[in-house]
Protein backbone atom coordinates (compact mmCIF):
# COMPACT_ATOMS: atom_id res chain seq x y z
CA UNK A 1 0.00 0.00 0.00
CA UNK A 2 2.76 2.45 0.89
CA UNK A 3 4.35 1.99 -2.49
CA UNK A 4 1.06 2.73 -4.23
CA UNK A 5 0.54 5.84 -2.09
CA UNK A 6 4.06 6.99 -2.99
CA UNK A 7 3.25 6.63 -6.67
CA UNK A 8 -0.17 8.27 -6.35
CA UNK A 9 1.10 11.31 -4.47
CA UNK A 10 2.83 13.15 -7.34
CA UNK A 11 -0.19 12.43 -9.57
CA UNK A 12 -2.55 14.05 -7.07
CA UNK A 13 -0.20 16.99 -6.58
CA UNK A 14 0.06 17.53 -10.34
CA UNK A 15 -3.60 17.04 -11.30
CA UNK A 16 -5.00 19.15 -8.46
CA UNK A 17 -2.10 21.64 -8.56
CA UNK A 18 -1.54 21.34 -4.84
CA UNK A 19 1.68 20.03 -3.36
CA UNK A 20 0.28 20.09 0.16
CA UNK A 21 -2.18 17.23 -0.34
CA UNK A 22 -1.35 14.44 2.08
CA UNK A 23 -2.41 11.17 0.55
CA UNK A 24 -4.01 8.72 2.95
CA UNK A 25 -6.51 5.90 2.40
CA UNK A 26 -9.24 8.12 3.93
CA UNK A 27 -8.69 10.97 1.48
CA UNK A 28 -11.86 11.58 -0.59
CA UNK A 29 -12.85 13.87 -3.46
CA UNK A 30 -14.71 16.20 -1.12
CA UNK A 31 -11.45 16.83 0.78
CA UNK A 32 -9.62 18.19 -2.26
CA UNK A 33 -10.29 21.56 -3.81
CA UNK A 34 -10.98 21.42 -7.53
CA UNK A 35 -11.82 17.69 -7.59
CA UNK A 36 -14.41 17.99 -10.35
CA UNK A 37 -15.62 15.76 -13.15
CA UNK A 38 -12.82 17.10 -15.37
CA UNK A 39 -10.00 16.62 -12.89
CA UNK A 40 -11.43 13.20 -12.02
CA UNK A 41 -11.15 12.16 -15.68
CA UNK A 42 -7.54 13.39 -15.82
CA UNK A 43 -6.67 11.77 -12.49
CA UNK A 44 -8.09 8.37 -13.49
CA UNK A 45 -6.29 8.51 -16.85
CA UNK A 46 -2.99 9.30 -15.13
CA UNK A 47 -3.45 6.48 -12.62
CA UNK A 48 -4.18 4.05 -15.46
CA UNK A 49 -1.05 5.25 -17.23
CA UNK A 50 1.13 5.03 -14.12
CA UNK A 51 0.11 1.49 -13.18
CA UNK A 52 -0.52 0.22 -16.74
CA UNK A 53 -4.09 -0.79 -15.89
CA UNK A 54 -7.56 -0.04 -17.25
CA UNK A 55 -10.57 0.69 -15.08
CA UNK A 56 -14.09 -0.47 -15.75
CA UNK A 57 -16.63 2.26 -15.12
CA UNK A 58 -17.94 0.27 -12.16
CA UNK A 59 -14.46 0.48 -10.61
CA UNK A 60 -14.56 4.28 -10.86
CA UNK A 61 -18.20 4.53 -9.84
CA UNK A 62 -17.64 2.67 -6.61
CA UNK A 63 -14.71 4.76 -5.40
CA UNK A 64 -15.40 6.49 -2.11
CA UNK A 65 -11.82 7.37 -1.21
CA UNK A 66 -8.17 6.70 -2.03
CA UNK A 67 -8.33 3.51 0.04
CA UNK A 68 -10.90 2.06 -2.40
CA UNK A 69 -8.67 3.12 -5.30
CA UNK A 70 -5.66 1.41 -3.75
CA UNK A 71 -7.61 -1.85 -3.34
CA UNK A 72 -8.61 -1.83 -7.00
CA UNK A 73 -5.09 -1.01 -8.13
CA UNK A 74 -3.72 -3.88 -6.01
CA UNK A 75 -6.28 -6.25 -7.51
CA UNK A 76 -5.48 -5.21 -11.06
CA UNK A 77 -1.71 -5.36 -10.76
CA UNK A 78 -1.57 -8.65 -8.83
Amino acid at each position, binding site marked *: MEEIITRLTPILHRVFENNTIVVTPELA*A*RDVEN*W*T*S*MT*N*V*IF*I*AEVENEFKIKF*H*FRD*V*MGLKNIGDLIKIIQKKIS
Partner: protein
Amino acid sequence: MKSTTENVYELFINTCKNHSGRSAIFIKDKTYSYSEFLSIIGGIKRQIQKSKRQSKMIGIYTNESVNTYAAMWSIMSLGNAYVPINKKFPLERAAVMIEDAGLNILLYSEESAEIEKLKERLGAKIDFIKMETITNGSLDYSFADIKGDDYIYLLFTSGSTGKPKGVPIRHKNVIVLIDGHLYDPKYNVTKEDRYLQMFELTFDVSVLSYVFPLMVGACFYVVPQDGIMYMDVLQILLDQKITIAYMVPSVINYLQPYFSQIELPELKCSIFAGEALYAKPVVEWQKCTPNGFIGNAYGPTEATVIVTEYIWDNAISQEETYNGMVPIGHMLGASKSLIADEKGKEVKQGEKGELYLYGPQVTTHYWNDEEKTKKSFVQIEHKGVAHHAYKTGDLCFINHRGNIMYCGRIDHQVQVNGYRVELGEIEFHTKKYLANDKNLAAFPIINAVGSTTIYIAIEGFDNKNNSALLDYLRTNLPSYMIPAKIISVDTLPLTISGKTDRQKLATSYQS
Protein backbone atom coordinates in the same frame (compact mmCIF):
# COMPACT_ATOMS: atom_id res chain seq x y z
CA MET B 1 -52.52 17.40 -27.53
CA LYS B 2 -53.05 20.78 -25.93
CA SER B 3 -53.37 21.76 -22.27
CA THR B 4 -56.84 22.87 -21.23
CA THR B 5 -55.50 25.40 -18.76
CA GLU B 6 -52.75 28.03 -18.55
CA ASN B 7 -52.06 27.07 -14.94
CA VAL B 8 -49.18 24.64 -14.50
CA TYR B 9 -50.17 23.91 -10.90
CA GLU B 10 -53.66 22.83 -11.98
CA LEU B 11 -52.10 20.26 -14.33
CA PHE B 12 -49.99 18.98 -11.42
CA ILE B 13 -53.03 18.67 -9.13
CA ASN B 14 -54.91 16.73 -11.84
CA THR B 15 -51.97 14.32 -12.00
CA CYS B 16 -51.97 13.95 -8.20
CA LYS B 17 -55.66 13.07 -8.27
CA ASN B 18 -55.24 10.51 -11.05
CA HIS B 19 -52.00 8.91 -9.88
CA SER B 20 -51.93 9.37 -6.11
CA GLY B 21 -50.28 6.02 -5.33
CA ARG B 22 -47.64 6.20 -8.04
CA SER B 23 -44.05 7.28 -7.40
CA ALA B 24 -43.40 10.98 -8.05
CA ILE B 25 -39.86 11.63 -6.86
CA PHE B 26 -36.85 9.54 -5.88
CA ILE B 27 -34.27 11.47 -3.89
CA LYS B 28 -31.53 10.36 -1.49
CA ASP B 29 -32.52 6.69 -1.81
CA LYS B 30 -36.15 7.37 -0.90
CA THR B 31 -39.23 7.32 -3.09
CA TYR B 32 -42.23 9.57 -2.44
CA SER B 33 -45.61 8.88 -3.97
CA TYR B 34 -47.75 11.65 -5.43
CA SER B 35 -49.92 11.69 -2.32
CA GLU B 36 -46.88 11.80 0.00
CA PHE B 37 -45.34 14.56 -2.09
CA LEU B 38 -48.59 16.54 -2.07
CA SER B 39 -48.83 16.14 1.67
CA ILE B 40 -45.33 17.63 2.10
CA ILE B 41 -46.27 20.44 -0.29
CA GLY B 42 -49.30 21.18 1.89
CA GLY B 43 -47.18 21.32 5.02
CA ILE B 44 -44.75 23.85 3.51
CA LYS B 45 -47.65 25.86 2.10
CA ARG B 46 -49.08 26.23 5.60
CA GLN B 47 -45.69 27.36 6.91
CA ILE B 48 -45.46 30.04 4.21
CA GLN B 49 -48.99 31.21 4.96
CA LYS B 50 -48.00 31.85 8.60
CA SER B 51 -45.42 34.42 7.47
CA LYS B 52 -46.43 38.04 7.95
CA ARG B 53 -44.44 38.98 4.83
CA GLN B 54 -46.07 39.37 1.44
CA SER B 55 -44.11 38.90 -1.74
CA LYS B 56 -44.91 37.91 -5.28
CA MET B 57 -41.57 36.12 -5.41
CA ILE B 58 -40.52 33.61 -2.75
CA GLY B 59 -36.96 32.33 -2.52
CA ILE B 60 -35.81 28.75 -1.99
CA TYR B 61 -32.29 28.13 -0.76
CA THR B 62 -31.86 24.93 -2.70
CA ASN B 63 -30.38 21.74 -1.50
CA GLU B 64 -30.86 18.09 -2.26
CA SER B 65 -34.01 17.47 -0.31
CA VAL B 66 -37.62 16.57 -0.99
CA ASN B 67 -38.54 19.81 0.78
CA THR B 68 -36.73 21.86 -1.85
CA TYR B 69 -38.70 20.23 -4.65
CA ALA B 70 -41.96 20.40 -2.70
CA ALA B 71 -41.38 24.08 -1.91
CA MET B 72 -41.50 25.02 -5.60
CA TRP B 73 -45.02 23.57 -5.82
CA SER B 74 -46.06 25.02 -2.46
CA ILE B 75 -45.12 28.48 -3.69
CA MET B 76 -46.93 27.91 -6.98
CA SER B 77 -50.08 26.75 -5.21
CA LEU B 78 -50.25 30.14 -3.45
CA GLY B 79 -50.07 31.97 -6.77
CA ASN B 80 -46.49 33.10 -6.15
CA ALA B 81 -43.33 32.55 -8.19
CA TYR B 82 -40.31 30.66 -6.86
CA VAL B 83 -36.75 31.93 -7.04
CA PRO B 84 -34.13 29.21 -6.51
CA ILE B 85 -30.93 30.37 -4.83
CA ASN B 86 -28.10 27.84 -5.13
CA LYS B 87 -26.52 27.04 -1.76
CA LYS B 88 -23.14 26.85 -3.52
CA PHE B 89 -23.32 30.46 -4.67
CA PRO B 90 -20.93 32.82 -2.89
CA LEU B 91 -22.63 34.92 -0.22
CA GLU B 92 -22.52 38.20 -2.13
CA ARG B 93 -23.96 36.70 -5.30
CA ALA B 94 -26.81 35.10 -3.35
CA ALA B 95 -27.46 38.37 -1.53
CA VAL B 96 -27.53 40.38 -4.79
CA MET B 97 -30.05 37.95 -6.28
CA ILE B 98 -32.24 37.97 -3.19
CA GLU B 99 -32.27 41.77 -3.10
CA ASP B 100 -32.78 42.14 -6.83
CA ALA B 101 -35.71 39.72 -6.80
CA GLY B 102 -37.27 41.74 -3.97
CA LEU B 103 -37.61 38.64 -1.81
CA ASN B 104 -39.16 38.95 1.64
CA ILE B 105 -39.28 35.25 2.32
CA LEU B 106 -36.54 32.65 1.91
CA LEU B 107 -37.26 28.97 2.54
CA TYR B 108 -34.42 26.64 3.49
CA SER B 109 -34.09 22.97 4.49
CA GLU B 110 -31.27 22.84 6.99
CA GLU B 111 -29.19 25.06 9.18
CA SER B 112 -25.73 25.82 7.84
CA ALA B 113 -22.93 28.32 8.12
CA GLU B 114 -24.04 29.77 4.76
CA ILE B 115 -27.58 30.39 6.03
CA GLU B 116 -26.19 32.06 9.14
CA LYS B 117 -24.03 34.35 6.99
CA LEU B 118 -27.03 35.18 4.79
CA LYS B 119 -29.12 36.01 7.84
CA GLU B 120 -26.36 38.29 9.08
CA ARG B 121 -25.94 39.92 5.68
CA LEU B 122 -29.67 40.46 4.99
CA GLY B 123 -30.95 40.88 8.52
CA ALA B 124 -34.58 41.49 9.30
CA LYS B 125 -35.47 42.29 5.69
CA ILE B 126 -36.04 38.61 5.03
CA ASP B 127 -38.26 36.10 6.81
CA PHE B 128 -36.07 32.97 6.84
CA ILE B 129 -38.38 29.95 7.10
CA LYS B 130 -36.85 26.58 7.89
CA MET B 131 -39.02 24.03 6.11
CA GLU B 132 -40.19 21.20 8.30
CA THR B 133 -41.62 18.07 6.76
CA ILE B 134 -45.00 18.36 8.43
CA THR B 135 -47.59 16.08 6.97
CA ASN B 136 -50.93 15.82 8.67
CA GLY B 137 -52.24 13.08 6.41
CA SER B 138 -54.68 15.31 4.58
CA LEU B 139 -54.21 16.23 0.96
CA ASP B 140 -54.74 19.85 0.01
CA TYR B 141 -55.84 20.06 -3.61
CA SER B 142 -56.65 23.77 -3.42
CA PHE B 143 -54.72 26.50 -5.19
CA ALA B 144 -54.94 30.23 -5.78
CA ASP B 145 -56.64 31.76 -8.79
CA ILE B 146 -53.61 31.46 -11.10
CA LYS B 147 -53.72 33.05 -14.52
CA GLY B 148 -51.47 32.39 -17.50
CA ASP B 149 -49.84 35.80 -17.11
CA ASP B 150 -48.81 35.10 -13.52
CA TYR B 151 -45.13 34.43 -12.93
CA ILE B 152 -44.09 30.86 -12.18
CA TYR B 153 -40.37 31.30 -11.57
CA LEU B 154 -37.53 33.81 -11.72
CA LEU B 155 -34.08 32.51 -12.64
CA PHE B 156 -30.82 34.44 -12.81
CA THR B 157 -28.27 34.21 -15.60
CA SER B 158 -24.77 35.61 -15.89
CA GLY B 159 -24.56 39.35 -16.65
CA SER B 160 -21.66 40.84 -18.61
CA THR B 161 -21.49 43.94 -16.39
CA GLY B 162 -20.98 41.91 -13.23
CA LYS B 163 -24.59 41.71 -12.04
CA PRO B 164 -26.68 38.57 -12.80
CA LYS B 165 -29.85 39.14 -14.85
CA GLY B 166 -33.22 37.96 -13.54
CA VAL B 167 -35.42 36.22 -16.13
CA PRO B 168 -39.09 36.00 -15.12
CA ILE B 169 -41.15 33.24 -16.74
CA ARG B 170 -44.94 32.97 -16.65
CA HIS B 171 -47.24 29.99 -16.36
CA LYS B 172 -48.42 30.44 -19.92
CA ASN B 173 -44.82 30.27 -21.23
CA VAL B 174 -44.35 26.86 -19.55
CA ILE B 175 -47.73 25.60 -20.80
CA VAL B 176 -46.63 26.33 -24.38
CA LEU B 177 -43.42 24.38 -23.72
CA ILE B 178 -45.44 21.45 -22.35
CA ASP B 179 -47.76 21.47 -25.35
CA GLY B 180 -44.93 21.78 -27.88
CA HIS B 181 -42.49 19.29 -26.39
CA LEU B 182 -43.84 17.04 -23.65
CA TYR B 183 -46.94 16.08 -25.65
CA ASP B 184 -44.99 15.46 -28.86
CA PRO B 185 -46.07 11.92 -29.83
CA LYS B 186 -42.57 10.80 -30.75
CA TYR B 187 -41.58 10.91 -27.08
CA ASN B 188 -44.53 8.68 -26.19
CA VAL B 189 -44.35 9.83 -22.58
CA THR B 190 -46.42 7.73 -20.17
CA LYS B 191 -46.84 7.32 -16.44
CA GLU B 192 -44.38 4.40 -16.63
CA ASP B 193 -41.50 6.66 -17.61
CA ARG B 194 -38.55 7.28 -15.31
CA TYR B 195 -36.89 10.67 -15.75
CA LEU B 196 -33.34 11.63 -14.84
CA GLN B 197 -32.99 14.90 -12.91
CA MET B 198 -29.31 15.89 -12.96
CA PHE B 199 -29.58 19.66 -13.04
CA GLU B 200 -28.98 22.13 -10.33
CA LEU B 201 -32.26 24.02 -9.82
CA THR B 202 -31.03 27.46 -10.87
CA PHE B 203 -30.41 25.95 -14.32
CA ASP B 204 -33.68 26.14 -16.23
CA VAL B 205 -33.26 22.83 -18.08
CA SER B 206 -34.10 21.27 -14.70
CA VAL B 207 -37.72 22.30 -15.39
CA LEU B 208 -37.90 19.60 -18.07
CA SER B 209 -36.75 16.98 -15.56
CA TYR B 210 -38.92 17.85 -12.56
CA VAL B 211 -42.04 19.40 -14.10
CA PHE B 212 -42.63 17.20 -17.15
CA PRO B 213 -42.87 13.86 -15.29
CA LEU B 214 -45.33 15.36 -12.79
CA MET B 215 -47.65 16.25 -15.65
CA VAL B 216 -48.19 12.61 -16.64
CA GLY B 217 -47.87 10.53 -13.45
CA ALA B 218 -44.26 9.55 -14.08
CA CYS B 219 -41.38 9.69 -11.59
CA PHE B 220 -38.12 11.65 -11.61
CA TYR B 221 -34.86 10.44 -10.05
CA VAL B 222 -32.56 13.06 -8.56
CA VAL B 223 -28.83 12.72 -9.14
CA PRO B 224 -26.74 13.56 -6.05
CA GLN B 225 -25.16 16.98 -6.46
CA ASP B 226 -22.05 16.65 -4.36
CA GLY B 227 -20.21 13.81 -6.04
CA ILE B 228 -18.47 13.29 -9.37
CA MET B 229 -21.37 14.26 -11.60
CA TYR B 230 -20.86 12.11 -14.69
CA MET B 231 -20.39 8.97 -12.61
CA ASP B 232 -23.43 9.70 -10.45
CA VAL B 233 -25.50 10.28 -13.61
CA LEU B 234 -24.40 6.92 -15.01
CA GLN B 235 -25.19 5.20 -11.73
CA ILE B 236 -28.75 6.53 -11.73
CA LEU B 237 -29.22 5.74 -15.44
CA LEU B 238 -28.24 2.13 -14.74
CA ASP B 239 -29.69 1.47 -11.29
CA GLN B 240 -33.05 3.14 -11.93
CA LYS B 241 -33.43 2.01 -15.56
CA ILE B 242 -34.07 5.58 -16.63
CA THR B 243 -36.19 5.91 -19.77
CA ILE B 244 -35.95 9.67 -20.43
CA ALA B 245 -32.79 11.65 -19.71
CA TYR B 246 -32.16 15.35 -20.24
CA MET B 247 -28.43 15.90 -19.89
CA VAL B 248 -25.67 18.37 -20.68
CA PRO B 249 -23.29 17.13 -23.42
CA SER B 250 -20.41 17.19 -20.90
CA VAL B 251 -21.83 14.00 -19.36
CA ILE B 252 -21.16 11.89 -22.44
CA ASN B 253 -17.92 13.76 -23.12
CA TYR B 254 -16.65 12.50 -19.74
CA LEU B 255 -18.07 9.01 -20.24
CA GLN B 256 -16.22 8.47 -23.54
CA PRO B 257 -13.56 6.12 -22.05
CA TYR B 258 -16.34 3.76 -20.94
CA PHE B 259 -18.68 3.73 -23.95
CA SER B 260 -17.77 0.16 -24.91
CA GLN B 261 -18.78 -0.99 -21.39
CA ILE B 262 -22.10 0.86 -21.09
CA GLU B 263 -25.45 -0.68 -22.00
CA LEU B 264 -28.69 1.19 -21.41
CA PRO B 265 -31.44 -0.76 -23.18
CA GLU B 266 -34.27 1.00 -21.28
CA LEU B 267 -33.21 4.51 -22.21
CA LYS B 268 -35.63 5.60 -24.94
CA CYS B 269 -34.67 9.30 -25.15
CA SER B 270 -31.39 11.06 -24.46
CA ILE B 271 -31.94 14.77 -24.98
CA PHE B 272 -28.94 17.05 -24.69
CA ALA B 273 -29.20 20.74 -23.89
CA GLY B 274 -27.26 23.58 -22.38
CA GLU B 275 -24.13 23.60 -24.53
CA ALA B 276 -22.89 22.58 -27.99
CA LEU B 277 -23.31 18.88 -28.75
CA TYR B 278 -20.59 17.24 -30.81
CA ALA B 279 -21.30 14.38 -33.23
CA LYS B 280 -18.41 12.11 -32.24
CA PRO B 281 -19.67 11.14 -28.76
CA VAL B 282 -23.25 11.01 -30.06
CA VAL B 283 -22.38 8.26 -32.54
CA GLU B 284 -20.87 6.21 -29.74
CA TRP B 285 -23.67 7.00 -27.26
CA GLN B 286 -26.18 5.66 -29.78
CA LYS B 287 -24.45 2.28 -29.43
CA CYS B 288 -24.87 2.46 -25.62
CA THR B 289 -28.59 3.24 -26.06
CA PRO B 290 -29.65 0.94 -28.94
CA ASN B 291 -33.38 1.23 -28.22
CA GLY B 292 -33.49 4.99 -27.86
CA PHE B 293 -33.11 8.11 -29.90
CA ILE B 294 -30.83 11.04 -29.25
CA GLY B 295 -31.88 14.65 -29.49
CA ASN B 296 -30.19 18.02 -29.33
CA ALA B 297 -32.32 20.81 -27.86
CA TYR B 298 -31.59 24.52 -27.76
CA GLY B 299 -33.02 27.48 -25.96
CA PRO B 300 -32.02 30.43 -23.79
CA THR B 301 -33.61 30.94 -20.37
CA GLU B 302 -35.34 33.98 -21.87
CA ALA B 303 -37.34 31.67 -24.20
CA THR B 304 -38.46 29.21 -21.51
CA VAL B 305 -35.91 26.41 -21.52
CA ILE B 306 -35.90 25.04 -25.09
CA VAL B 307 -37.34 26.18 -28.40
CA THR B 308 -35.67 23.89 -30.94
CA GLU B 309 -34.82 20.23 -31.24
CA TYR B 310 -32.93 17.97 -33.59
CA ILE B 311 -33.20 14.20 -33.61
CA TRP B 312 -30.01 12.36 -34.53
CA ASP B 313 -30.23 9.98 -37.46
CA ASN B 314 -27.18 7.76 -37.97
CA ALA B 315 -27.93 7.56 -41.69
CA ILE B 316 -27.86 11.27 -42.48
CA SER B 317 -26.85 13.40 -39.48
CA GLN B 318 -23.09 13.13 -39.96
CA GLU B 319 -23.37 15.21 -43.15
CA GLU B 320 -25.27 17.91 -41.29
CA THR B 321 -22.70 18.75 -38.65
CA TYR B 322 -20.97 22.13 -38.56
CA ASN B 323 -17.43 22.12 -37.15
CA GLY B 324 -18.36 18.75 -35.66
CA MET B 325 -21.43 20.21 -33.91
CA VAL B 326 -24.88 18.65 -34.17
CA PRO B 327 -27.60 20.95 -35.59
CA ILE B 328 -30.00 22.59 -33.16
CA GLY B 329 -32.78 21.67 -35.56
CA HIS B 330 -36.25 23.08 -36.09
CA MET B 331 -38.48 25.24 -33.95
CA LEU B 332 -40.74 23.52 -31.43
CA GLY B 333 -44.47 24.09 -31.20
CA ALA B 334 -45.53 27.69 -31.54
CA SER B 335 -42.03 29.18 -31.21
CA LYS B 336 -40.61 31.09 -34.17
CA SER B 337 -37.24 32.41 -35.24
CA LEU B 338 -35.55 34.80 -37.59
CA ILE B 339 -31.89 34.81 -38.61
CA ALA B 340 -30.92 38.35 -39.50
CA ASP B 341 -27.94 40.49 -40.42
CA GLU B 342 -26.73 43.53 -38.41
CA LYS B 343 -29.50 45.63 -39.92
CA GLY B 344 -32.19 43.18 -38.85
CA LYS B 345 -32.84 41.96 -42.39
CA GLU B 346 -33.50 38.26 -42.81
CA VAL B 347 -30.57 36.41 -44.37
CA LYS B 348 -30.86 33.78 -47.09
CA GLN B 349 -30.66 30.04 -46.43
CA GLY B 350 -27.03 29.10 -45.85
CA GLU B 351 -26.01 32.61 -44.76
CA LYS B 352 -24.99 33.30 -41.19
CA GLY B 353 -26.74 35.83 -39.03
CA GLU B 354 -27.92 36.45 -35.49
CA LEU B 355 -30.76 34.27 -34.22
CA TYR B 356 -33.85 36.12 -32.98
CA LEU B 357 -36.58 34.20 -31.16
CA TYR B 358 -40.23 35.17 -30.87
CA GLY B 359 -43.49 33.55 -29.93
CA PRO B 360 -45.33 32.55 -26.78
CA GLN B 361 -42.29 31.13 -24.95
CA VAL B 362 -40.28 34.36 -25.07
CA THR B 363 -40.43 36.39 -21.88
CA THR B 364 -41.14 40.09 -21.92
CA HIS B 365 -38.24 41.60 -19.97
CA TYR B 366 -35.38 41.23 -17.50
CA TRP B 367 -36.33 41.72 -13.87
CA ASN B 368 -35.71 45.30 -12.71
CA ASP B 369 -33.34 46.04 -15.57
CA GLU B 370 -34.70 48.38 -18.17
CA GLU B 371 -31.32 48.97 -19.77
CA LYS B 372 -30.56 45.29 -20.42
CA THR B 373 -34.18 44.68 -21.42
CA LYS B 374 -33.92 47.35 -24.14
CA LYS B 375 -30.70 45.78 -25.44
CA SER B 376 -31.95 42.20 -25.64
CA PHE B 377 -35.71 42.43 -26.26
CA VAL B 378 -36.48 44.17 -29.52
CA GLN B 379 -39.24 44.70 -32.03
CA ILE B 380 -38.62 42.90 -35.29
CA GLU B 381 -40.59 42.49 -38.46
CA HIS B 382 -40.84 39.02 -39.95
CA LYS B 383 -43.05 38.03 -42.86
CA GLY B 384 -44.70 41.43 -42.72
CA VAL B 385 -45.70 41.17 -39.06
CA ALA B 386 -44.16 42.95 -36.05
CA HIS B 387 -43.03 40.79 -33.16
CA HIS B 388 -41.51 41.18 -29.71
CA ALA B 389 -38.30 39.14 -30.00
CA TYR B 390 -35.29 38.08 -27.98
CA LYS B 391 -31.92 38.83 -29.54
CA THR B 392 -29.94 35.69 -28.66
CA GLY B 393 -26.40 36.71 -29.62
CA ASP B 394 -26.06 33.28 -31.25
CA LEU B 395 -24.66 33.06 -34.76
CA CYS B 396 -26.65 30.59 -36.87
CA PHE B 397 -27.65 29.63 -40.38
CA ILE B 398 -30.33 27.41 -41.93
CA ASN B 399 -28.96 24.40 -43.78
CA HIS B 400 -30.25 22.71 -46.94
CA ARG B 401 -32.59 20.54 -44.85
CA GLY B 402 -34.14 23.53 -43.10
CA ASN B 403 -32.37 22.82 -39.81
CA ILE B 404 -30.85 25.62 -37.79
CA MET B 405 -27.08 25.26 -37.41
CA TYR B 406 -25.39 26.87 -34.44
CA CYS B 407 -22.01 28.43 -35.29
CA GLY B 408 -20.96 30.17 -32.09
CA ARG B 409 -21.48 33.44 -30.26
CA ILE B 410 -21.46 36.95 -31.59
CA ASP B 411 -20.39 38.26 -28.19
CA HIS B 412 -18.40 37.01 -25.25
CA GLN B 413 -20.73 34.49 -23.76
CA VAL B 414 -19.89 30.79 -23.40
CA GLN B 415 -21.55 27.72 -21.94
CA VAL B 416 -19.66 25.86 -19.23
CA ASN B 417 -21.23 22.52 -18.24
CA GLY B 418 -24.48 23.96 -19.51
CA TYR B 419 -24.27 27.15 -17.48
CA ARG B 420 -24.30 30.45 -19.32
CA VAL B 421 -21.15 32.42 -18.57
CA GLU B 422 -20.56 36.01 -19.61
CA LEU B 423 -16.81 36.37 -19.86
CA GLY B 424 -17.35 40.01 -18.98
CA GLU B 425 -18.63 39.02 -15.56
CA ILE B 426 -15.40 37.17 -14.77
CA GLU B 427 -13.38 40.10 -16.10
CA PHE B 428 -15.42 42.56 -14.05
CA HIS B 429 -14.64 40.84 -10.77
CA THR B 430 -10.99 40.27 -11.70
CA LYS B 431 -10.60 43.97 -12.45
CA LYS B 432 -12.17 44.80 -9.09
CA TYR B 433 -9.60 42.62 -7.35
CA LEU B 434 -6.70 44.11 -9.25
CA ALA B 435 -8.03 47.64 -8.72
CA ASN B 436 -5.80 48.94 -11.51
CA ASP B 437 -5.82 49.35 -15.26
CA LYS B 438 -4.21 46.07 -16.19
CA ASN B 439 -5.63 44.73 -19.42
CA LEU B 440 -7.10 41.30 -19.14
CA ALA B 441 -9.30 38.90 -21.07
CA ALA B 442 -11.17 35.75 -20.17
CA PHE B 443 -11.47 33.24 -23.00
CA PRO B 444 -12.84 29.74 -23.53
CA ILE B 445 -10.71 26.64 -23.99
CA ILE B 446 -11.98 23.24 -25.03
CA ASN B 447 -10.57 20.72 -22.56
CA ALA B 448 -9.37 17.18 -23.15
CA VAL B 449 -12.89 15.69 -23.18
CA GLY B 450 -14.38 18.34 -25.46
CA SER B 451 -16.06 20.46 -22.81
CA THR B 452 -15.51 24.19 -22.34
CA THR B 453 -13.46 25.69 -19.56
CA ILE B 454 -12.29 29.26 -18.94
CA TYR B 455 -8.78 30.73 -18.85
CA ILE B 456 -7.93 34.33 -18.07
CA ALA B 457 -4.91 36.25 -19.40
CA ILE B 458 -3.72 39.30 -17.46
CA GLU B 459 -0.99 41.69 -18.56
CA GLY B 460 1.94 41.82 -16.17
CA PHE B 461 0.30 39.65 -13.51
CA ASP B 462 2.49 37.98 -10.95
CA ASN B 463 1.39 34.34 -10.87
CA LYS B 464 2.47 34.15 -7.21
CA ASN B 465 -0.87 35.89 -6.58
CA ASN B 466 -2.93 33.20 -8.32
CA SER B 467 -4.34 31.75 -5.09
CA ALA B 468 -5.33 35.15 -3.71
CA LEU B 469 -7.09 36.11 -6.94
CA LEU B 470 -8.91 32.78 -7.15
CA ASP B 471 -9.98 33.07 -3.50
CA TYR B 472 -11.41 36.52 -4.24
CA LEU B 473 -13.25 35.31 -7.34
CA ARG B 474 -14.75 32.43 -5.34
CA THR B 475 -16.38 34.96 -3.02
CA ASN B 476 -18.21 36.50 -5.98
CA LEU B 477 -18.66 33.86 -8.64
CA PRO B 478 -20.05 30.33 -8.77
CA SER B 479 -17.57 27.49 -9.23
CA TYR B 480 -18.25 27.02 -12.95
CA MET B 481 -17.11 30.61 -13.58
CA ILE B 482 -13.77 30.32 -11.80
CA PRO B 483 -10.94 30.32 -14.38
CA ALA B 484 -9.12 27.01 -14.64
CA LYS B 485 -5.89 28.84 -15.43
CA ILE B 486 -4.48 32.33 -14.90
CA ILE B 487 -1.95 33.31 -17.55
CA SER B 488 0.41 36.22 -17.22
CA VAL B 489 1.18 37.92 -20.55
CA ASP B 490 3.32 40.93 -21.48
CA THR B 491 0.63 42.30 -23.76
CA LEU B 492 -2.70 40.95 -24.94
CA PRO B 493 -2.97 40.22 -28.67
CA LEU B 494 -5.15 42.70 -30.56
CA THR B 495 -7.30 42.47 -33.66
CA ILE B 496 -6.89 44.87 -36.57
CA SER B 497 -9.55 47.07 -35.02
CA GLY B 498 -7.62 47.29 -31.78
CA LYS B 499 -9.83 45.01 -29.69
CA THR B 500 -8.50 42.15 -27.62
CA ASP B 501 -8.16 39.10 -29.85
CA ARG B 502 -9.75 36.39 -27.70
CA GLN B 503 -9.73 34.05 -30.67
CA LYS B 504 -5.94 34.29 -30.88
CA LEU B 505 -5.62 33.76 -27.14
CA ALA B 506 -7.81 30.66 -27.34
CA THR B 507 -5.84 29.28 -30.29
CA SER B 508 -2.50 29.95 -28.57
CA TYR B 509 -3.43 28.12 -25.40
CA GLN B 510 -5.56 25.36 -26.88
CA SER B 511 -3.45 22.20 -26.62
